[in-house]
């Protein structure tokens, strides 16, 4: 099978990212682009990834399956992929923000961790 | 009496087309899975051996006579009529390269019983004079002499005397009221007299009464193989009448595949009535004995053995667990072949192929399938429960220069009986 020709959706998407980065600088407005909601030829996502490139930060999350959070070569634009516990992709997005919300520690988790730490310390005499 | 004609053949096709045939043809999805189930295809790679293709004459007849489109096409000359030349060409496919083993029927995703259809197509082939000459001869001998191999009663009586001498036991003939009627295949009378001796010993130990019938000792049925129900009925009615005259409770089919099919499944349909007795394969009876504690054996076979499931007995007869129980009774080194049981590969000589000299070359060629199975196992002894399989196994192994003894299961059991005297 020969490589398929393209939908032409990459260019407008790149423009959308550019506008979103401008907004982030100007107003602090964040944005999420759901890549699963728009059509791409099979080769186009690969191409998009190549154009956006790899930036400074790369993180992996392990909660209900793996997630990869990769800053693109354009700081402030993040490529985020969530997988489920069966390692199937469940969502693929580009987020425009200072730091993706999913990386932030959550109050409930901090609380639970704190409890555990306290009980551990309570059982050990210093 | 009259000569076979194309018209009679076509009439036979029309007689044979029943609801199952019509629904089988109309539900075929042309997937070709039956090809890989057939050893005539797998061992030759020639697509003409695809089971559904062997049915082409009957399929076209059905299409032309029973479907609207087919009739139109025939009327418009778009579909060619069935000719004598075509049937002669198909003879090889329907007789020489099909053992009615039924493996194709097992894999058909829409449940078409292809073996049943081939058996029915043979009716038209025989009626139109396109049956192999050797099968005609065998049928002739069966009807006129009483056995496809020409075995007459005196030959059996001679073997019986020999068996009586060997075992020191009585070989009963025509005993009214005996519990079991024993049938034999010609092959067992002429080539494997051990079978009769084994029967005498086993039934003696079990304390069961049995008998042979002097007017119906032959279990095989050439009518089934050649595909002439009239002849099949004539042959099977001899057994049915003898069994009912002797008032036996059970008729035992010997170690012969199609004989079991003939008496167990075809007989009531051919006779058009319920039979006055039960029909069991000898392995089923032996297993009954074993379960009731009537089969006492001692010692175990030391060699590594495997079992070749005869198609008609295992696949179409369902006698699969019985031989395993019996083998494990006398062996602790029994191993299974790949695809054993209901998916076992045919020996290559059933369904009339062994009696058909025209099929000699191909039946040896396709025996390669069995050779492959056996090579994977490296056994010392091959056991089976069909005299016809046994002949082919022995001949095939010889041709492929493999030194491997072939034994009938019943006689193997008999050799391990605890002496009770």
């Amino acid at each position: 099978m020969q490589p398929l020709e393209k939908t032409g959706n990459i260019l407008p998407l790149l423009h959308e990212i550019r506008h979103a980065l401008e907004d982030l600088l100007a107003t602090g407005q964040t944005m999420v682009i759901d890549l699963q909601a728009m059509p791409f030829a099979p080769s186009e996502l690969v191409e998009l990834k190549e154009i956006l490139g790899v930036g400074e930060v790369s993180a992996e999350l392990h909660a209900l399956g793996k997630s990869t959070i990769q800053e693109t070569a354009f700081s402030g634009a993040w490529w985020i992929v969530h997988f489920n516990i069966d390692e199937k992709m469940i969502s693929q997005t580009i987020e425009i923000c200072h730091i993706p919300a999913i990386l932030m520690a959550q109050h409930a988790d901090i609380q639970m961790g704190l409890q555990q730490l306290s009980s551990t310390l309570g059982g050990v005499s210093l | 009496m009259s000569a076979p004609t194309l018209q009679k053949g076509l009439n036979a096709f029309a007689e044979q087309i029943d609801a199952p045939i019509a629904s089988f043809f109309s539900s075929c999805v042309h997937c070709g899975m039956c090809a890989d189930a057939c050893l005539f295809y797998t061992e030759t790679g020639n697509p003409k051996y695809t089971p559904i293709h062997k049915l082409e004459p009957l399929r076209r007849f059905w299409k032309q006579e029973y479907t609207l489109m087919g009739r139109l096409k025939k009327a418009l000359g778009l579909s060619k009529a069935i000719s004598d030349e075509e049937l002669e060409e198909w003879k090889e496919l329907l007789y020489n390269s099909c053992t009615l083993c039924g493996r194709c029927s097992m894999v058909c995703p829409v449940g078409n019983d292809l073996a049943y259809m081939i058996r029915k197509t043979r009716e038209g082939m025989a009626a139109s004079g396109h049956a192999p000459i050797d099968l005609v001869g065998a049928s002739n001998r069966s009807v006129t002499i009483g056995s496809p191999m020409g075995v007459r009663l005196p030959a059996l009586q001679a073997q019986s005397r020999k068996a009586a001498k060997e075992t020191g036991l009585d070989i009963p003939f025509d005993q009214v009221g005996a519990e079991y009627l024993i049938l034999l295949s010609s092959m067992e009378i002429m080539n494997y007299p051990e079978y009769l001796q084994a029967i005498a010993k086993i039934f003696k130990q079990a304390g069961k009464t049995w008998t042979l019938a002097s007017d119906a000792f032959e279990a095989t049925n050439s009518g089934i193989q050649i595909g002439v129900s009239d002849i099949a009925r004539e042959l099977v009615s001899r057994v049915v009448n003898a069994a009912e005259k002797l008032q036996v409770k059970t008729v035992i089919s010997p170690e012969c595949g199609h004989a079991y099919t003939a008496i167990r499944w075809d007989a009531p349909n051919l006779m058009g009535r319920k039979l006055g007795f039960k029909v069991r394969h000898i392995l089923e009876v032996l297993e009954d004995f074993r379960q009731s504690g009537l089969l006492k054996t001692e010692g175990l076979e030391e060699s590594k053995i495997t079992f070749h499931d005869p198609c008609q007995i295992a696949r179409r007869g369902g006698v699969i667990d019985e031989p395993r129980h019996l083998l494990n009774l006398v062996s602790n080194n029994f191993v299974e072949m790949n695809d054993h049981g209901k998916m076992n590969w045919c020996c290559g000589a059933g369904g009339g192929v062994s009696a058909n000299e025209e099929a000699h070359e191909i039946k040896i060629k396709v025996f390669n399938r069995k050779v492959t199975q056996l090579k994977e196992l490296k056994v010392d002894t091959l056991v089976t429960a069909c005299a016809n399989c046994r002949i082919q196994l022995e001949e095939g192994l010889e041709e492929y220069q493999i030194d491997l003894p072939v034994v009938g299961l019943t006689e193997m059991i008999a050799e391990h009986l605890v002496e009770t005297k």
Partner: protein
Amino acid sequence: MNQLSLEERLRLHGVSRRGFLKFCAATASLMALSPAMIPRIAAALENAKRPSVIWLSFQECTGCTESITRSHSPSLESLIFDAISLDYHHTLQVASGDAAEHAREQAMKDNWGKYILVVDGSIPLGNKGFSTIAGISNVDMLIETAKGAAAIVAVGSCAAFGGLPKANPNPTGAVSIDMIIKDKPIINVPGCPPIPVVMTGVLAHFLTFGTLPELDHLKRPKAFYGQNIHDRCYRRPFYERGQFAETFDDEGAKKGWCLFKLGCKGPTTYNACATTKWNGGVSFPIESGHGCLGCSEPNFWDAGSFYAPLSTPIGHVAQNAGYALAAGALAGAAIGFANKQKSSQAIEKHEEITVNDLIKGETK
């Protein structure tokens, strides 16, 4: 256990708040909701209680259940289905016989007015006896079970539109759910089978908002059925440029050109296949090289050939085909009768064959 909220249950299973937020993000994507909705989804799911679900299967092939149990959302079994209480499902439940029917009655009693009724398969009205469960006809069971339902989800084209059983000449008199139940909210999730995540998405929406999603004129959730396949198809640019595959093996087909001329029903079919895709987002029919059959549209089976371009007039063809079929059925019956005659005539003509009648040219 039934009283715990979804988040509490997840936490019991060792899932962190962060994991829960990830699940909410995936759910938003699943429901085709704006990512801005994630906080709202999280807030709603934190407090969601397990609704009871009763699943009835009528004239169907189990393809819908097959499809849904292969759903790949954040692991269907552990999450979405964990978040509901599936109290009755012929195919999946362990109970059988009286115990099974008892489970259904008990769930109805305990959750009267609150449970969700999921139905796959059409209902035969030609003769009630065509399809029964535990001796109860499909139509009776539907009417009885629908009475206490909060809403009904008709899963698959059979339940939504009558589907294959209803195709001409509709021998069982099959009808869709909404032909029988008129006084309950009904959500149609058509497709043969429907995309699994669409089904999960509808359940997730109900869990999240406690309401039904927005529906189109055919009662389908707009989030999934709002756009047609064609508009979201990656092959759409070829259509615009007039580049079409003419056969399944020509150069155009190899280059992945538009399948319109090969009968693709994408332009008139509203479904999410082109973006959500199948088998965990691997592919969808058009990406595999075959046109869309239009399986999520009413009467797709009778809408002309799957391989005739949409520009061929189908209205009259379908009607004429109906007449032709009716004529064919009559002709078929006539042939059936003639065929029976043929076999019995053949049997009458049978001359007994003896062993002397088997060799050509030998007449004795």
